[in-house]
């Protein structure tokens, strides 16, 4: 199963390399703008933190850690394919049919489709570099256990975002036209947070780690991993727990929607956005 998945990811990576080599100018422009966009997004909170030395209980280095964590999550999400971000379009435009005629389980097709590892490595590199840099001044005890927790948290954040986008994207099963762009709207809603949410009222914090779980993409897992003041001993498991719950919900909604799709099919088709 894993070997087959890797094989398909390899096919996506080859297509990615081929596109980059053929459209060098475009690829460079894309990478540079992506780099500037991500760096620019990180700059404001870092400058604020450096100017005041901290934001709430977060020292400047912890802010950098949180932003680096968020950057790694978003670059991995982008590299892993555009299925979560364009699910509603694919369903709404009848393009899911193209996936269903492939002799692969649908989860594998969705997981591997659009894999573009070479588009996002600069952003990922910034994320990893800043994360590594921030750990030193923060005096984080980097043990195998802590690194394992970091890996689990990153994976959980990716699952949370994917599940959130899938759950919303599945609306297109029931309203192909009306909800065609819901994935785009949902991805705007769950964008990573740039500032710590600690000063935010408690009720809003709860919303931002549940209904709109932006806080789970960097803020809450970073706070738990760095054991900042106000962190409970079990907080580091909140993001993985949310990933399990949201993941299960997304799978259930998707299966329900797919059953409907099998029954009703898609009566509209547009190739727009399909394998460009």
């Amino acid at each position, binding site marked *: 199963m894993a070997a087959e998945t890797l094989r398909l990811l390899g096919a996506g990576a080859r297509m990615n390399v081929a596109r980059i080599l053929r459209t060098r100018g475009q690829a460079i422009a894309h990478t540079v703008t992506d780099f500037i966009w991500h760096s620019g997004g990180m700059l404001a909170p870092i400058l604020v933190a450096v100017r005041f030395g901290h934001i709430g209980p977060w020292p400047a280095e912890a802010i950098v850690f949180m932003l680096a964590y968020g950057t790694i999550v978003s670059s991995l999400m982008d590299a892993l394919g555009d299925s979560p971000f364009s699910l509603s379009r694919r369903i709404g435009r009848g393009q899911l049919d193209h996936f269903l005629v492939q002799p692969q389980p649908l989860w594998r097709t969705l997981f591997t489709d659009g894999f573009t590892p070479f588009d996002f490595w600069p952003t990922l590199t910034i994320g990893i570099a800043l994360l590594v840099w921030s750990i030193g001044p923060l005096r984080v005890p980097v043990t195998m256990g802590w690194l394992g927790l970091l890996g689990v948290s990153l994976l959980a954040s990716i699952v949370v975002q994917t599940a959130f986008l899938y759950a919303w994207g599945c609306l297109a099963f029931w309203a192909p036209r009306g909800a065609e762009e819901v994935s785009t709207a949902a991805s705007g809603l769950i964008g990573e947070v740039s500032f710590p949410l600690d000063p935010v009222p408690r009720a809003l914090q709860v919303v931002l780690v549940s209904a709109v779980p932006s806080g789970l993409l960097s803020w809450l897992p970073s706070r738990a991993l760095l054991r900042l003041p106000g962190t409970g001993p079990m907080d580091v498991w909140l993001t993985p727990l949310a990933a399990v719950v949201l993941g299960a919900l997304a799978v259930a909604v998707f299966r329900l929607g797919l059953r409907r799709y099998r029954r009703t*099919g898609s009566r509209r088709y547009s190739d727009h956005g399909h*394998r460009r």
Partner: protein
Amino acid sequence: MATAVELRGVHKSFDRRLRSATFAGLLRDLARPRHETVTALCGIDLAVEAGEMVAYAGANGAGKSTTIKLLAGLLAPDAGSVRALGVDPVRDRVRYVGRIGVVFGQRTELWWDHPVSATFAWRRTVWNIPDDVYRRSLAFARELLGIDPFWSAPARELSLGQRMRADLALALVGEPRILFLDEPTIGLDVLVKQEVLDAIRTLNRERAVTVMITSHDMPDLEQLRARIVLLNRGAIAYDGSFEELRRRLGDRRRLVIETDSAAAPALPGARWAASEGTRHEYAFDAIVTPIPRLLAAAAARARLVDVETQRAPIEEVIADLYRDWRDA
């Protein structure tokens, strides 16, 4: 001979939401949505033998594409059973779709911004096609469809005919046992259409690939010399050969004449169908009433300004056939 495709008592219907055009109606619809049931397939029984070529024809909305979607594992029937290559296309989708090829005329499997060759390499990986099978089937497909001239061109730069040939060749890679072609000649010019139809015939004749092809273009399907299944409102109205169909239907045509009078002249051997001003339309069977005789009769009875004959539209032919059988 083994059965490649079998549909037994297949029913498929869809819900359609009805909407009002007036504001009050829209509010009413909001409070109490109205739906109607559209029957796409109504008790279809069909068996296709391995190596057979079946032309699946019917008017728009007759249920052709729904059948292809059922057979491609994209849709499940409401009632009845669908079996192809001995399996249920929906339940055994992964195993099944690796052994079939599907081409939808208005869709493409090609990667838009990549050369045609890249999509073939991608398919080889995703379909997990063994090296020897890939080499053999690719060589056959490239020669059969003549795709070498645009093998390295980006898909977005292909003409519609080239795209269709590439899509068809792509479906042949991996040596599928059944090929489902949904309107593969739609929008193609005469020459390319001929090439595509020739390729389909060769494929069926030389490789014994079972082919199910849909179209509402009867002359195209007739060229394939296939068994023809005619659908009308979701039911099979005819299943047999073209020769038998022609014998039953005759050569149904339309004669449109423009005269200097709004009164349509009565023409022996033709049935008046409609008039619009001084333009009059008649239905006739060209075998029973030869065209020259009918034109002579028209010229004798009216002052002709313009004359035009047309083959009766397939929708009308099918409807007539269906009416004939219902009345029989």
